[in-house]
């Protein structure tokens, strides 16, 4: 029998704990600002836009805004305090999500045990280095005792031990991984937040795209590029399907993809294997999916497969590295049948946000947890994946 590998503690030690804090506790907010500064001073971070984004996210001004938003959404000021200890099982496909997961737990007022991805992302090292440095400061001694970052390979014994001793778990992962972790027992009142595989898409109103001037079109294309290409379409909020509304879809599609292609060609570091993967995916889709009627390509930077109808299992239509599906829906109602519980982020252009919200509510849809403009798909927030994170990771003290 193989020996179990030892867990590797990147920050803190085995037994993090301590008493919970209130949400947005001053010490937590100060700590995040110090972490932000530490990261921004690290020359390595400049080469990693995702770490830079995280660093900016943690700066004092942004945290203060999140605090205002949180308190503003709860008039009457309920008294809240963290649940206790949160155990995070974080994803390997998006390197910095383990850090956001930690911040969720901390801002809600909890001690945290964060299992970082076993894949050796350089981002993990940078962020853990900064955490250690900042936690070493005396003013954060209390947080030091509440913080553990650990790395280990597949190990149900360790995951089980951490699960047995926590008040909440944040589980990022594929369906199978989540099912398996759910089998490990937790205390009775433990809360699980599962960030499972999700599916995201975009809705563009064709006449609005056609009405854009050159600069406007370039801005839209760049925003879309950021949503889709920055994470190789691997993020759960990156779009795979583009649905056109309002007629004139063919004309709008032509100029839109052309503009996206021009930007991708300039910015996207397409590798040989990615080009081959896309070509293979295209041929396989042609074989497997009769709903695909044709393809539009911009070199090997944009593959756009035309759908003549929408399949029920829309979330199976996934692309990577700039590979999309497109459907001329005409009107919103035509999309309702395919919005299942897997659908997370809807990015939109040229449509009223309220109209889209009304679509979800009035059609009583099982999916769509976020409605954001094109360009903001990757903006992570404290309302995420259908959860109010701070509320979910804290408890309310009822006072009468």
């Amino acid at each position, binding site marked *: 029998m193989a020996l179990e590998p030892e867990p590797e503690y990147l920050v803190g030690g085995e037994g993090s704990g301590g008493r919970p804090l209130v949400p947005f506790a001053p010490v937590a907010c100060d700590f995040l600002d110090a972490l932000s500064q530490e990261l921004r001073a690290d020359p390595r971070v400049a080469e990693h836009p995702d770490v830079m984004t995280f660093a900016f996210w943690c700066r004092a001004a942004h945290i203060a805004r999140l605090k205002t938003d949180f308190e503003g959404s709860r008039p009457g000021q309920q008294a809240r305090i963290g649940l206790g200890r949160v155990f995070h099982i974080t994803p390997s496909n998006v390197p910095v999500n383990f850090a956001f997961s930690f911040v969720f737990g901390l801002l809600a007022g909890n001690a945290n045990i964060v299992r970082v991805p076993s894949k050796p992302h350089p981002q993990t090292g940078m962020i853990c280095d900064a955490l250690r440095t900042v936690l070493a400061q005396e003013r954060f001694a209390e947080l030091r005792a509440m913080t553990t970052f650990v790395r280990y390979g597949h190990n149900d014994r360790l995951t089980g031990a951490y699960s047995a001793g926590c008040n909440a778990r944040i589980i990022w992962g594929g369906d199978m991984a989540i099912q398996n972790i759910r089998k490990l027992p937790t205390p009775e009142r433990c809360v699980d937040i599962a960030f499972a595989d999700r599916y995201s898409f975009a809705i563009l109103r064709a006449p609005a795209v056609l009405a854009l001037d050159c600069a406007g079109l370039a801005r839209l294309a760049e925003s879309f590029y950021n949503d889709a290409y920055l994470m190789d379409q691997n993020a759960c909020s990156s779009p795979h399907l583009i649905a056109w509304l309002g007629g004139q879809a063919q004309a709008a599609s032509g100029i839109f993809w052309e503009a996206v292609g021009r930007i991708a060609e300039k910015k996207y570091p397409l*590798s*040989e294997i990615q080009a081959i993967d896309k*070509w*293979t995916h295209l*041929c396989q889709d042609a074989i497997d999916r009769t709903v695909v009627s044709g393809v539009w390509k911009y070199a*090997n930077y944009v593959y756009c497969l035309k759908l003549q109808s929408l399949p029920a299992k829309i979330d199976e239509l996934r692309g990577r590295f700039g590979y999309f599906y497109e459907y001329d829906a005409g009107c919103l109602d035509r999309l309702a049948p395919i919005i299942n519980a897997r659908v997370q982020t809807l990015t939109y252009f040229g449509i009223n946000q309220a109209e889209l919200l009304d679509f979800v509510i009035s059609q009583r849809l099982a999916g769509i947890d976020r409605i954001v403009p094109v360009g903001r798909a990757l903006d992570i927030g404290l309302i995420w994946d259908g959860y109010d994170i701070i509320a979910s990771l804290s408890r309310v003290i009822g006072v009468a």
Partner: protein
Amino acid sequence: MFDLATIFDRPAFSLAKAEKAGLFARALSELTRHHYARCPQYKRILDVLGFDVGPTHAMGDQPYVPVRLFKDNRLLSVNHDQIVKTMTSSGTTGQSVSMIFLDKVTAGNQTKALVKIAAHIIGPKRRPMLIIDSRATLKDRALFSARGAGILGFSMLGHDVTYALDEEMRLDMSAVTAFADRHQGEPVLLFGFTFMIWEHFHKPLAASGGRLAFENGILLHGGGWKKLSQLAVTNEVFKHRMQEVCGIRRVHNYYGMVEQTGSIFMECEHGRLHCSNYSDIIVRRHSDFSICPANEPGLIQLASLLASSYPGHSILSEDTGEITGEDDCPCGRLGKTFTIHGRIKDAEIRGCSDTYGAGT
């Protein structure tokens, strides 16, 4: 319909640029039409691409199937009952394998082409042959691995065919020395897969300090450099070391893949890989699949006139390389010459030889 017999009657490296371009345009266009009519998956691909099979297209305008498609799909253009052989690339355990379905005609043409190409390099006379592999590789006759198929195909070039390795892939020294004694001073033929030769023939010989006397022999080998380049063994080092352990001076590498068995690319006396009358290559840029001029590296597309029972007449490989010339090799053979740089990075390991991956 294009008749392969017309080129089987000619020497294997005899088509000059203009004639070859015309002939390949006609023959490949017919093959594309043939597979479009008979292989439903191939038809779907061309329909989605909007490709018009009607007119004659130059080779550069032919559609190309990515090699990985042969792993996840059973692509064939004949009825199942006409299949006489199923070839597999065989990666290590757990990897998916390509499956290539051959009918009698395609299998026969592959053998014919292989013999014509190899004979042009080593001469038409059959030679005593030492196969640096194990007989065990040929176990299952109905399901051929690329290695098994290579052994059987090349065996046609030899007589007194002798296996140098036992069932456990150990060097069978008594069989090898007996072979050497039987054919002292004769122009023997040695054949095997590059990494097998290195690992199971060169290594034990070098370790024992033994030296075989194959000074007049020829060694043909193929199946990939991936493992050897990890050991920093180049083609030159390989040749040099082989001469050290068995005196052999004529060593020819070949490039090919199970998806296009038969129409292999042989290294000539001047160290260049050659396209034959039955095959051609195009190098493409990965950014848009446009065609690279000579001496610009890119992805390799391979065409073969032999593939009629499965739609593999034009495929896009996961290997990179560059064209080094056309009709201008000092060896006098016509056709394009090229070099292979290797497998694209992070590609799923796939290849031509059992267990050892790689197809270069």
